[in-house]
């Protein structure tokens, strides 16, 4: 646990709200608009923290606890996720299981808080969210298992640390398939197109947005921040596989990783701009497809 390993967590905490800004700017560019300021999410967070919260009389302590527990879990997960070649704060064998479990915890408390309101919109969103996550979990786990088998390491930090040019040259197709599966998981978990449209204002078409309709003030700020953190961490997961370079200098590696992160945000923005949202009927097919791609990668690795 040297000083270097604090940096991924610090960067995540400070820079993660920048990611939604970059994505929105990319989408605006495609649409021919100027778009929101890059730091808009920071302004939103600041504004929300200053406001007061309104609680419905039908809710209980779960509704108040949900966002806070979610944020705590996200922060803990941040301690596990390395950035590129830079190791994370906590690293032990099979820490990716804990990571996935913490993300699951975030989702669980969001869902439970949504159900606590007793509103039908939230319930609908909750059921969709849980269904789609049930389909992405296998994809995530199979992809991580493939990665573990490929690199021979069991901890996220060491896994990403050992992905190198040689790996890409030797088993390029396998790693490519893993990246594809993880990208689809990223898009699904963060409620991006083609799974969910973050800009829609029609509750019947929402998944994630509709679950958090009733939160306000600091609670909503926590939720927004948790979403940004989740985006950062899953992005770091994809980045860890994609970036094979390892120059000797750790600062150069960090700079490359940061560049990669914002590049990934641009890619997400591009995907959001060129595709339309899939009909809800076909989203399971997409997610199972991601699972199948990961399974193919696993089979190719195991032979």
């Amino acid at each position, binding site marked *: 646990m040297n000083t270097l390993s604090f940096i991924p967590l610090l960067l995540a905490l400070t820079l993660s709200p920048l990611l939604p800004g970059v994505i929105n700017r990319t989408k605006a560019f495609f649409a021919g608009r100027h778009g929101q300021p890059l730091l808009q999410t920071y302004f939103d967070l600041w504004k929300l923290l200053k406001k007061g919260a309104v609680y419905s009389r039908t809710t209980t302590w779960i509704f108040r606890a949900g966002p806070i527990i979610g944020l705590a879990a996200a922060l803990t997960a941040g301690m596990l996720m390395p950035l590129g070649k830079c190791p994370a704060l906590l690293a032990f064998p099979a820490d990716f299981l804990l990571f996935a479990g913490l993300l699951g915890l975030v989702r669980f408390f969001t869902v439970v808080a949504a159900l606590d309101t007793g509103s039908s919109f939230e319930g609908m969103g909750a059921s969709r969210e849980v269904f789609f996550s049930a389909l992405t979990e296998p994809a995530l786990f199979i992809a991580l298992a493939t990665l573990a088998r490929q690199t021979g390491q069991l901890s996220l930090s060491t896994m990403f640390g050992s992905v190198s040019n040689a790996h890409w040259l030797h088993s*390029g*197709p396998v790693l490519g398939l893993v990246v594809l599966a993880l990208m689809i998981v990223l898009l699904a978990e963060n409620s991006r197109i083609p799974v969910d449209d973050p800009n829609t204002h029609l509750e019947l078409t929402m998944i994630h947005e509709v679950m958090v309709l009733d939160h306000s003030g600091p609670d909503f700020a926590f939720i927004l921040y948790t979403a940004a953190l989740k985006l950062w961490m899953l992005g770091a997961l994809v980045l860890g596989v994609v970036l094979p370079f390892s120059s000797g200098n750790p600062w150069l590696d960090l700079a490359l990783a940061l560049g990669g992160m914002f590049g990934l945000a641009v890619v997400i923005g591009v995907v959001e701009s060129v595709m339309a949202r899939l009909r809800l009927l076909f989203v*399971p*097919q997409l997610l199972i497809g991601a699972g*199948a791609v990961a399974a193919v990668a696993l*089979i190719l690795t195991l032979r």
Partner: protein
Amino acid sequence: MMTNLILVLVVLTNLKLLGSSRLGASIRVVAAQGVMLGLLPVLAHVHELSLHLAALAVGTVALKGVVFPWLLFRALREAEVTREVEPYVGYITSILVGLAALAASFWLGGRLPVSTVEPSSLLVPSALFSILAGLFLIVARKRAVNQVLGFLVLENGIYTFGVGIVAETPFLVELGVLLDAFVAVFVMGIAVYHINREFDHIEVDRLDRLKG
């Protein structure tokens, strides 16, 4: 490395076929698969390129990439269909079955006593997987065009097998196989046209007057 990439892409295209209900997209996917497989022998023997190998590759790409899709799209247009109807086995189950078939192909490929280190160790498993996927499409789909596509995938798998197994299949025989695929698709296209004209649909599960 290139051959590995092509074979992985072939595996992915087979999975896409198993999970897709849009007939137009399926025809294009099979055409892409055919083109990639046509290029496979050229890439595998890129050092000993001979005239007949190149001619065969060009012929295969032309037939599978251009002629077959044209014939099948014509059949689709005549029958005025765009999608598969509710198939015997649902799409998600099809993909899961496909994954099981892929695992089985890898297992079988390891047990088969053929020396196929060149051009790639992925060759026999992906060939077996194409064969199984093609068979599954023939059995589990209801529209006749989908069955023809399954047959084409089956032939692709056998062709891939041939590229790896026999060091140099005699030129005339390879030509025979190609011609056979062409005539088969041609014949099946005409058959689909007649079936559509007579019955006004091309769903083979509704062809059930002959029993016993």
